[in-house]
């Protein structure tokens, strides 16, 4: 079996793979792909356009992410545009399975329909919400009564 040459890999797949290197500055543990903020990628001769779905409208990381994505993709095309899109709203369901695992490993409980949050450190459900508003717009602050550790959970939006 002959390994496919680099040239044979469609540009779009290469772009998606490269986007795995771009991380949210407020949650460095997760890539923009796993966070689900990439709404779509379009490639044509010499040009790439990416749709970015903000987690929260007022998220201060939006412009930083636009810059970081364009910077990462510059090797693939002369023109890269990263547009904020609302054609479909970002919801927490867009976070991938890998993304959820990465969040948990970093001490963030992934978003959940379950009204009781599960501690990302010890797994206990003996937890309470301390504040619906955390250090960033997308996170709330919880406390685990079992391991006595504060932790953050992604808001369900």
């Amino acid at each position, binding site marked *: 079996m002959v390994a496919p040459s680099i040239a044979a890999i469609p540009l779009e797949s290469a772009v998606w793979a490269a986007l795995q290197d771009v991380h949210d500055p407020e949650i460095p543990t997760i890539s923009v792909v796993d966070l689900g903020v990439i709404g779509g990628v379009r490639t044509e001769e010499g040009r790439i356009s990416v749709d970015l779905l903000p987690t*929260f409208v007022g998220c*201060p990381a939006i412009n930083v992410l636009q810059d970081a994505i364009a910077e990462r993709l510059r090797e693939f095309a002369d023109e890269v545009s990263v*547009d904020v899109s*609302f054609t479909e709203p970002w919801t927490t369901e867009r976070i991938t399975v890998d993304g959820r695992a990465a969040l948990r490993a970093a001490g963030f409980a992934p978003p959940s329909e379950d009204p009781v949050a599960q501690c990302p450190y010890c797994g206990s459900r003996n937890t309470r919400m301390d504040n619906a508003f955390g250090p960033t*717009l997308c996170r709330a*602050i919880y406390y685990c009564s079992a391991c006595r550790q504060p932790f953050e959970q992604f808001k369900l939006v």
Partner: protein
Amino acid sequence: MTTETRRATRQLIQPDLPRFDASGLEPALRTAIADLLLTMADDEFVVGFRDSEWTGIAPMLEEDVAFSSLAQDEIGHARLLYELRSALTGEDPDRLAFHRQPSEYRHARLLDHARQGWGFTIVRRWLYDTADSIRLAALAGSSFAPLAQVVAKIRREERYHLMHLNAWLERLGTRPGKPRGKVLSALKQLNPIATSVFAPIPNEPMLVDAGVLSAPMAQLAARWRSEANARLCALNLRPIADAQPAVDGRDHANPDESFVWLWNEFTSVARLEEGAEW
């Protein structure tokens, strides 16, 4: 990387939010939508700055964080709505936000009052948030798709605001003595102006006919009053008076002193140097 390539890339990355083709809109309808967007953007902008006044001085650390988050959300919504309007009118969103005279803003007069104490802030914000949620619901199926999309996103965030404000209204309103007294006096003071969020806007019938807005403002006001009063009555609090929204509910020809103070604050950086970025 050379400066030239950097500059070339910068131009391609538009920080602006939604882009769409508005060329198919009738000019009169386009103006009507732009006016609606300005009222909503100004509301969110002013309430966001009011919230930010609590950063660092809220009664507890959690509320410093909460009100700073609320402020950031609302200013984010305002920015998006100003940009949506700008896409229709060709204006510069920054000029809209920071370079108008106080008399040119179109926020509801409910938001004119100074923040006063914590109890007053909670009551005013609760009145605004409950009204805003009725207005957003009336735009969720808007025939103007860019607005419907933006509203879908905003509503997901506002849910948390409402939850927070409902909890505080109950906490203060049911605690006898000073907390409940503050809530009662704020409700009394704000009652005459509470409905100003639903003050009639220019060309409202055109917006309703075109399906941009699902019902006239007066109808939304009645819907809001019945929902809000159910909640107030459950807490044994004074209901909102059954009055039509005043026609001058968004008129600032003679701007309120408290708003002029706030305007001086939020335009202070922009006025320091023309065209400055921060």
